[in-house]
């Protein structure tokens, strides 16, 4: 397994390289630059600014210079937030985004798996319909509709939770629910479908026939098998959290990394966008590796070549 992990990590390096190059090319291809504003800069000042940030060098030289810095884990200065470096911005934003993303994922799993199992075990009865209706609502309502609605109900009309910003754990409740609801719904449906299938399988019937308690049959024997589709889903789910977090972070005013994608792109902050893209690329590669390893642990039939 260690060999497999090492091989995967090595194979990720060309992927990340291509990712970075694509990001670089696309950012530069967009018209407009970081120093364009409606108030025109005097030509001497503009030339100075561009020299300071090496924008006057040929593109390939800038690319090479950037690659060299990245290899040394230096993502460069931010064009738009002049007083800080990209490293500092990522350091500040990542814990917040990680907390938000991790908590949403946990929320989705902790609520979705039991909901799905319950629906499968009480199939076609009222519990099942309630659960699946909730799931359908969760998938259908976009998070940017759900979030303001929740703010109205919980923060404005009643005084139960804060409307935004950072503070204590209370500030994370609404964003986590908003971000995690759609995922919870998917997880519930997946678990329900796979549990129904697993409960009909031979080995579960054998376990029952042997006289094991229902609880033991469900939790120890059926659950790991029903979770395999969920684990496969975790990879794209992580990506979904990242993209979903942009909207949630804006609505709730949470200073995570998601906002930097959009704000950075709109302001043509080259270093910030490339830094965040690369960072997220690394995260997704690691996460997918973790998911594959988890898959192998859950399902003993899977082997690594």
């Amino acid at each position: 397994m260690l060999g497999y992990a090492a091989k995967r990590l090595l194979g990720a390096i060309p992927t990340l390289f291509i990712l970075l190059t694509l990001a670089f090319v696309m950012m530069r291809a967009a018209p407009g630059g970081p120093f364009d504003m409606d108030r025109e800069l005097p030509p001497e000042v503009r030339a100075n600014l561009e020299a300071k940030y090496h924008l006057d060098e040929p593109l390939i030289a800038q690319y090479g210079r950037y690659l060299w810095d990245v290899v040394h884990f230096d993502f460069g200065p931010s064009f738009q937030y002049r007083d800080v470096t990209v490293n500092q911005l990522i350091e500040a934003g990542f814990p917040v985004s990680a907390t938000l993303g991790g908590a949403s994922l946990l929320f989705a799993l902790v609520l979705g798996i039991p909901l799905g199992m319950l629906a499968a075990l009480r199939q076609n009865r009222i519990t099942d319909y309630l659960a699946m209706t909730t799931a359908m609502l969760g998938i259908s309502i976009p998070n940017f509709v759900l979030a303001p609605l929740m703010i109205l109900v919980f923060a404005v009309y009643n005084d139960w939770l804060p409307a935004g910003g950072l503070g204590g754990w209370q500030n994370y409740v609404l964003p986590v629910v908003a971000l995690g609801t759609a995922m919870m719904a998917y997880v519930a449906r997946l678990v329900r479908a796979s549990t129904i299938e697993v409960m009909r399988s031979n080995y579960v019937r054998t376990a029952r026939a042997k006289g094991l308690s229902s609880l033991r049959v469900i939790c120890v024997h059926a659950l790991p098998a029903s979770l395999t589709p969920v684990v496969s889903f975790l990879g794209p789910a992580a990506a979904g959290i990242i993209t979903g977090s942009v909207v949630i972070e804006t609505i709730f005013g949470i200073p995570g990394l998601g906002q930097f994608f959009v704000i950075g792109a709109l302001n043509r902050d080259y270093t910030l966008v490339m830094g965040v893209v690369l960072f997220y690329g690394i995260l997704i590669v690691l996460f997918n590796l973790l998911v594959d390893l988890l898959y192998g642990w859950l399902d003993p039939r899977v082997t690594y070549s």
Partner: protein
Amino acid sequence: MRNSRACLRAAVVAMAIATLGTALVGCGNGNDAGRAKLPVKISPKVAEDGTATLRRGNGAEPGTLDPHQARGVPAANIIRDMYEGLISISPDGETEPGDAESWTVSDDQLTYTFTLRDNARWSDGSPVTASDYVYSLRRAVAPDTASPYAELHLPIVHAREIINGKADPDTLGVKAIDEHTLEIRLNAPTPYFIGTLAHPSSFPVKRSAVERYGNAFTQPGNAVTNGAYTMTSWRVNSMIALTRNSKYWDNANTAIERVEFYPIADANSELSRYQAGELDWAGVIPPSRLETVKMAIPSQFHAVPTLGVYYYGLNLRNPPFKDAPKLRQALSMAIDRQVIVDKITRGEEVPAYSWIPSVVEGYDSAQFEWTKLSDDKREAQAKRLYAEAGYSAEKPLQVEIRYNSNEGNKKIASVISAMWRGVLGADVTLRNEEWKVYLDSVRQGADTQAFRMAWIGDYNDPNTFFELMNSGFGLNATGYHSAEYDRLQEQSAHMPDGSERNETMHAAEAQLLADSPVIPIYFYTSKYLIKPYVSGFEGNPLDIYYSKDLAIEP
């Protein structure tokens, strides 16, 4: 049988959810005509020792808090609370002494001598001296600093050469006669010069901090400030916290102990947080909620006309607007600005029948000749000019309106295109581009025709709007080149205040309105929501509100 029971169950469940939802939200949520309801929590943030915190919603995250590099209102709000220049702005928008206790002007109006306060101090206790100002003004014009407002200092001797890289910053016409006396020499009499000294790019920065920390001198812990507050924390995209600067010379009059600035990108979020009691001051109101806000909490709503103009520029370099003054006037005339202000923007904006906003101090704008005409007469005259320009139903004008992507711009462009089509019969296409792409298009000026622009004044004098249309200024996106206008504008920039200057400016403005290289549409109004326990707010056209002038009375 099973199916119908399931259906019934599903229906019951659905109704239960619906009732629960309505109960949570509460009945009577604002659909009664004339009685809009907008719950707002009144809860100031007061600490146990009785000191208060002012929480301000502050728009976008500032790119930098270096007074010489910052631009935009959000950064300026924070910088004005932390630093102070020679001149300050009083709550009603007048200039008043800041660090400079008094000043004298020589007879030829070329030399200003400022006497600094004895008790002006930096937050580290050291006195604010004239050499601090010499260092800072040189830094503001040095090309290395890359200040977007370097040209604000052009009146000062040698500033132009320094900005263009032809002279050393040390040659700037500022001198420290002694620790408390600063002398500034100008190229020509400049009536608006004092106003420029209240702008952040004229603020002092502590040399030792800049040299020691470089770019990071603005961070909390490194920053040394001479204003009413110092920074305690800065979390990008979350909050900037300031606390009282006890060394400030006027600290005794600062009522509020702490200020927190919240950069909230989404206007709806800002309103929600204001309602939830998390903000004391909201700087933006989502346009779709304006009516509700005005009806429900009129005492907390403040609309202040400001020094800003929303206009359409016309590209005079290419057809159809090249050498076509009658067409340009016709297009300007065909727009019903009152409708736009009443029905589209609905934020108490002022329709623009002149180039200079009406709130500018001490100056009565020249207006379009047709301003007082009735709608019918105005439209008839527009049609006549359109025909004289050579267009008709068989040969309609083909014109494109370009604007940067934004709901408000889109609505206004749609309405104006409908007006041009309805009144004149012109064929209008709309095109929107993302902001940076749009800036690029306007700068290149290759294929733009009518394009949306805005300009906010830097100081309270008509010159800040007049110089924009000088053919040598900045972008000159319209390509307007009138020798007569340039002459009148430059002349008025250097005449002493008085009726002669006003007449010259009037003539320049009249020329501009007749030539119509731009179509002013409305003048901006800033809108604020301020909790009733915050006192000291007086609207001013410069949009400058120092936290030290406010107080919280729970």
